[in-house]
């Protein structure tokens, strides 16, 4: 759409800017402030320069947390996106059962995150949880509080349980927007099921899948509450993702300087990656249009 040039439109944006600035800029400045100062308590601060940044950048702890975080985000994206698309493709297109599916699938999305954690904490316990008990009875040695791998699997399965539906709903919405004529044309052209997916459904879902990947990536990168409730970051540091590590550092040990420096870099990493995702995906789209 052609947009009119009008700088007075700023007045309409002003409330948003004021509101978000209040919640974003001031706290961010506080963080920046901490990140370059040191304190011996009593609210006496002095300039520390880039000391905290260097310290955090060199700390093995940060590297490990970052690595775990990447692994986690990659794993859940690799599971949730294909699974979500597959489920969306299998769903009834309309009618009563489609509504039932949508309502049931959206349910996990609306459960407070610590309740999600609690549900899985209970569900996975060998003594009182259905999953843990079943696995134990099947002879599987499963214990998410002791075994790092089990803890990981539990957290990943929980995230899949919690968020795959978002991908399903987005993909389903994308599929719904495909006019019936495309499917009819494909039948006339004798296209196979795979080709219908590859050349009709996938291109039409691209827009919403981009949103799905971006949202899932950002949110998984910021994940805190659910794994914290289930494993508390353990056993050891096996499931200590970036946010958990950060809160441990800031509130647990009250290392404000490093925590703040850590926060900033963490934020920048998310920004950078989101930007890369976004650019890569929209560029491939543009290339398609321009060629």
């Amino acid at each position, binding site marked *: 759409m052609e947009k009119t040039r009008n700088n007075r439109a700023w007045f309409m944006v002003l409330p948003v800017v004021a509101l978000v600035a209040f919640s974003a800029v001031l706290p961010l400045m506080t963080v920046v402030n901490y990140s370059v100062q040191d304190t011996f308590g009593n609210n006496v601060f002095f300039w520390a320069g880039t000391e905290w940044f260097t310290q955090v950048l060199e700390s093995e702890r940060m590297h490990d947390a970052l690595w775990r975080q990447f692994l986690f985000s990659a794993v859940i994206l690799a599971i949730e996106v294909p699974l979500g698309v597959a489920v969306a493709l299998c769903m009834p297109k309309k009618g009563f059962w*489609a509504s039932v599916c*949508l309502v049931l699938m959206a*349910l996990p999305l609306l*459960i407070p*995150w610590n309740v999600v954690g609690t549900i899985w904490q209970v569900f996975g316990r060998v003594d*009182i*949880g259905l999953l843990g008990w079943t696995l134990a009875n099947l002879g599987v040695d499963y214990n998410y509080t002791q075994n790092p791998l089990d803890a990981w699997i539990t957290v990943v399965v929980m995230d899949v349980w919690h968020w795959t539906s978002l991908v399903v709903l987005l993909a389903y919405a994308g599929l719904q927007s495909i006019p019936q004529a495309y499917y009819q044309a494909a039948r006339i052209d004798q296209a196979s099921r795979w080709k219908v997916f590859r050349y009709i459904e996938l291109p039409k879902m691209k827009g919403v899948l981009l949103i799905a990947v971006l949202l899932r990536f950002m949110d998984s990168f910021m994940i805190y*509450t659910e794994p914290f409730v289930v494993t508390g970051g353990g056993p050891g540091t096996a499931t200590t993702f970036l946010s958990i590590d*950060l809160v441990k550092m800031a509130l647990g040990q009250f290392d404000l300087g490093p925590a703040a420096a850590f926060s900033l870099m963490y934020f920048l990493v*998310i920004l950078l990656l989101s930007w890369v995702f976004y650019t890569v995906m929209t560029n491939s789209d543009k290339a398609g249009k321009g060629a």
Partner: protein
Amino acid sequence: MKIGNFLVVTLYILFLMLPIYWLLNMSFKPNSEILGGITFFPRNFTVQNYVTIFTDPSWYMGYVNSILYVAMNTVISLAVALPAAYAFSRYSFLGDKHLFFWLLTNRMAPPAVFALPFFQLYSSVGLFDTHIAVALAHCLFNVPLAVWILEGFMRGVPKEIDETAYIDGYSWPRFFVKIFMPLIASGIGVAAFFCFMFSWVELLLSRTLTTVDAKPIAATMTRTVSASGLDWGLLAAAGVLTIIPGALVVFFVRNYIAKGFALGRV
């Protein structure tokens, strides 16, 4: 419907429902039964856990608090996002693209980063432990999202509609409320849904910013850790109750989900 499709969908829903079933199951059991072994249906059926929650103000006020700040957040987010989204969808102005991106970056800000500064900020302005504090804090990620969603829907409305309305003598506010908002009603519904959703499920900020008066239900749940160990039944009942508002909301918007989740930008 093909049998394979049916199987995939059924298995997936089964996977989603099992943990919820287990929570529901537990919430109707006394603690002795929960700890006594696995039973698939409550053998000593009891609603005592729910009675406890509904008779103890420190429990049920948690719900009231949560619902209050979620409602406030939804209203505030939409009220400021609507004109802004209109501006982004209709006009180009100095720095519009940068502004839009800056707004979206706040959606990417990890709450963990902001928890402590928020605590200090709201304490210093005297809003600590109030509903409005939580509502404002949640605006940080809900407003950008609402602007983003609404902008997508508004772009789908042809500009000629605006122009026709002006020619017919509508003032901008009247045009916006009487003509434009009904046209993007499903978009507003979806934005409200997302605001509700993310405000309702968030815990880190809402817990950091409250102690007693505005404490959310989800945080109240941690109270079940007492001297005698965890009160599992009570925990489960509280959990079940936190699912209900979400379930209601989904039920009401079920017909818009398909259209709305495309966010107007397919």
